[in-house]
């Protein structure tokens, strides 16, 4: 059995977002790149499953649509235990382009289970997993918070308002996972870091479809209004301020 985990390379969640001068793009200078947190959890779960599968799961492959700057992130996935990696050499514009290009690879290199995170922490499009399943004409299950193997049959659970749904689908399928799928992401060990060097990272040129959208511009959210603290003893001042400054009463 083979598992594919889709990895998105995203700015570290503590990154301060900056825009380019003309506001047409994000300024990525000096950004620290990490594995998208949901994808990292998906990978963690895949590794857990492989370890307890007694050899039934043969390989875990990670795939990224991105240019060479994504390689450190990919190698981290190899260092924590993925067996091999594929990078589709393209700086993608939208979810459609990502999904279409991953689908093009998967059509020639089939997997039994494909995992994707519910969204990426940069553009939060939440569309790649679903689109990928459509391109491949296979089932997808969204918001998966539990995945296990019962013998060789995968079993999933998802939280729904007021309860939990338990789902089984035939392989191959796409599971779009969210928090709960695994606890903490793994920390790579020295041995893993050394081995990552020797693992295969296949780079292929894009053969899928191009983007369907273009970005027109970006805008920063409005700065939060300033907060004025008033001493409890001067509560009366509140009324004056609401009346004279805020002009709401």
């Amino acid at each position, binding site marked *: 059995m083979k598992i594919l985990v889709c990895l998105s390379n995203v700015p570290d969640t503590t990154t301060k977002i900056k825009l380019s001068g003309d506001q047409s793009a994000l300024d990525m200078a000096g950004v620290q790149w990490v594995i998208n947190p949901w994808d990292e959890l998906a990978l963690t779960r895949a590794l857990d499953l492989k370890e307890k599968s007694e050899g039934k799961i043969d390989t875990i492959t990670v795939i990224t649509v991105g240019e060479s700057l994504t*390689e*450190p992130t990919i*190698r981290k996935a190899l260092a924590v235990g993925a067996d091999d990696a594929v990078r589709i050499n393209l700086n993608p514009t939208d979810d459609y382009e990502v999904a279409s290009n991953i689908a093009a690879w998967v059509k020639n290199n089939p997997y039994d289970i494909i995992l994707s995170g519910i969204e990426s922490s940069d553009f939060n499009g939440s569309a790649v997993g679903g689109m990928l399943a459509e391109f491949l004409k296979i089932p997808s299950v969204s918001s998966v918070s539990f995945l296990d193997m019962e013998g060789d049959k995968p079993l999933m659970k998802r939280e729904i308002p007021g309860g939990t749904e338990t789902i089984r689908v035939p392989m191959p399928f796409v599971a779009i996972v969210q928090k709960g799928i695994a606890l903490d992401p793994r920390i*790579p060990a*020295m*041995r893993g*870091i050394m081995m*990552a060097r020797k693992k295969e990272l296949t780079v292929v040129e894009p053969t899928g479809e191009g983007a369907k959208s273009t970005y027109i511009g970006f805008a920063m959210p409005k700065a939060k209004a300033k907060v004025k603290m008033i001493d409890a003893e001067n509560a009366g001042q509140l009324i004056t301020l609401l009346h004279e400054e805020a002009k709401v009463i």
Partner: protein
Amino acid sequence: MNFQFTEEQLMIQQAARDYAQRELIKDVLERDEKALYPTEHVKNLAELGFLGMLVSEKWDGGGMDTVSYVLAMEEISKVDASVSVIMSVNNSLVCYGLEKFGNDAQREKYLRPLARGEKIGAFLLSEPEAGSDATKQRTTAVDMGDYYLLNGTKNWITNGNTASTYLVIAHTHPEKGHRGINVFIVERHSEGITVGPHENKMGMRSSDTHSVMFNDVKVPKENRIGEDGFGFKFAMKTLEGGRIGIASQALGIASGALELATKYAKERKAFGTEIINHQAIAFKLADMAVKVENARNLCLKAAWLKDQGQAYGTASAMAKMYAADIAMEVTTEAVQIHGGYGYVKEYHVERLMREAKLTQIYEGTSEVQKIIISRSLME
């Protein structure tokens, strides 16, 4: 000249940071308060490969370079220097000493489990009456034909109780001065060894420091490292590298304090604004940042020299002295920036200040580093 870290070095730095910020932080205050040994963390760090990261893969180590080691030591020390000193002693004193100067039989038997972190090592040089002046060893090892008979007391031994493998410095020929000193591999549970009580320390309270007494302990002949009389040179050579570990530890304590103080100064308000907007505080932070950066550069330079196979003794003494001294200054200022909150335990900076003090003392006091540095100028 290239200031760019490799992808692997960055990965190791991140791994150490993740472990420290995610795991060590959870119980560091309690372990400090109650002086509890970090058993679980030592096990986890062993599994991640940190305890033998400098040993070559051939001997089951991580095969990493010294630059990576500095990066990892800094990250671990930002949160918990009690844990990083265990890592430092095991890696850069015990494993290094065995790998560099031991023979294959010794490496096979003792280095492998230490490099895997399954066993922990300790380095026993200091004595009640021999600290800075390490030539004044009173511990003796008398040649009895097929074994040595070891007698004496060692003081202040890090990992003193938890270690399984001791590297013990002792006099075999007191009349020969420092040329009569040897170093022996001694198993902790050999007959005749008594470990003293846990020292009740000011800082690094979670690491176990003990005195160790030897009373007619038989040490097999094959456990002597190197030629007869090599012990003093062994200690000095090994400490040269060890100092890179302690320098990086001091660096981490300082940079950890700087991070905390900067964060606090951006949040805490006084006189209507965040205190970082008061120039007196902003300039303090600027001074601290320059010191930390200088210390980091000295540590990395010494590590780089070692990785290049060049002489690094003076560089590591400079790094150790400077990083330890600025760690004391930076942590003191970090407490000051925190005001009253800095003086209580929840805010971590008072603990960092207590930890910083030790870095000016062990593996050669700051005064001893100055002796080493000034002697290199006299050459």
